[in-house]
């Protein structure tokens, strides 16, 4: 995948996380850990469902390692690599 495609995924995830947390998109940083932004188990599972619907990738069974899922940037890379 090219850099532009990763950027599109990242922007899409920022929109979704902002919606789940009722935050302004500008306050959602791609490098900020999701738990520090206030995402909990329920919000995170909601995000995984959105990712499945949007990118046709089911991540729940992937191990959900902290390194891959901790930030929007790392999550975008994971999705990009799986697409």
């Amino acid at each position, binding site marked *: 995948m090219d850099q532009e495609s990763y950027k599109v995924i990242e922007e899409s995830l920022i929109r979704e996380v902002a919606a789940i947390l009722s935050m302004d998109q500008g306050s959602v940083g791609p490098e900020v850990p999701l*738990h520090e932004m206030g995402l909990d188990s329920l919000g995170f599972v909601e995000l995984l469902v959105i990712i499945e619907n949007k990118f046709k990738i089911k991540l729940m069974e992937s191990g959900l390692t902290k390194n891959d899922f901790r930030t929007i940037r790392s999550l975008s890379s994971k999705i990009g690599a799986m697409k």
Partner: protein
Amino acid sequence: MIALPYSRNKRYLTGIDWIVHVLNYMTMRETGAGFMSQVVIEVAGDLNAFVVDNVLNTFIKKHPIVNGCFSRDINLAPYWKISLDKKSEISLDTMTLKGDESFDVIINSLEKGINTLFNNKKEHIAFHILTGGGKSYIAMTFDHLLFDARNAEAFLNMFQKGWEGVEDSGNMTITEPAHLSMWMDKFKAGQRVNRAFLQIADRIPPRVLPLPPGKKNGFKFKILSFSRKVAEAITENAFNQAGYLMLMPYALSASVSALHEIFAGRGFASGNYVIPVSIDTRKKEEVKRQVFFNNVSFFIFKVEAALADKFPELLKSVKEQMYNQVKADLPGDICKASLLMRIAPLPLLGSLMKIYLKGQIASFSFSYVGETAYESSCFMDNKIINIFHMPRVPVPPGIGIFFQQSKESLNVILSYLDGMLTDEESGKILNLLKSRLGVE
């Protein structure tokens, strides 16, 4: 449908509120007291009961909704009739501590408050103060007809904001439509909920602990309080074993695993576990707007007994079920479908709720209340040491495990009807929970 003019002293009940009324009815019938809970704030220093009483009375009088009661409208929709009588005083009792009491003794004293009936049908809040030995506990016993756990914290937060001179109730809403439209949407949600429950139901009832004899049993509580440092270690264990941000499935799996040992110890060999998990789907800002009534919904987990002592498989099953229920929006469907149930009288609905699980409701209750709605680090001018909850669990099942975070601690609360567990069993559950959470 008859359109009624909006009334200032009326707040329609949602379907979830109605389910809470049913649980209250069932618990009252089994134990003589209702579906109540208690939020306890432990503070440094002595609280002056006279001052607390005065300030609380002034605050409560601004919120006549707390002195309401259930009624039915001409269109049959149930509603909360808000009392405009501002004469009623809050109930507050005090007790002096010597200062050398163990935490268990303090919990025993706090149990008296949560196991005491309200004085009348319009009383839904009572306060208790324990003070002495350089610290105090203020407990607000509340009726779940009025608040869920997070809203109770939000209510006390509103009180504290007022004390600090920051009135923060400007955006609060207490209105609710009668929800007497979009019937097809509700019926379709009802169909989906029905299918989900049929999938959970087995041919035999789920595993449950027998209720003790007698109708006047109070609730007992065992509480584990973990410091921030230990709570962070638990979170890290959850992330490593269950996956990033999977703290709720991890805590639920640990609870199933711990309780399974008690069932196994008693020789239970048939039936699986069914666990309703209450969740708050609101955003943080919505908690400030909707301080009263119940803003929760539910997941319903079924755990095969054969998986209960295989932790990795148990975790996998719980995570899968959570994912599938979020994907199917089961909590949303329960909210919509429950609006249809409001027509049913409480005894009838109580019986109907037991049909799916062959006369039972659940094996135990579980909830995980994450971020606290109480924002200040003080209660009045006293520094907070901890905030924890003491919920009476609906009966049946009469037993539950609750995880709840305050700014200061992670608390794990085992709540059970007196006589359901021996002291040895309740102690064993706490030890097993510590072990499963990796903090022995």
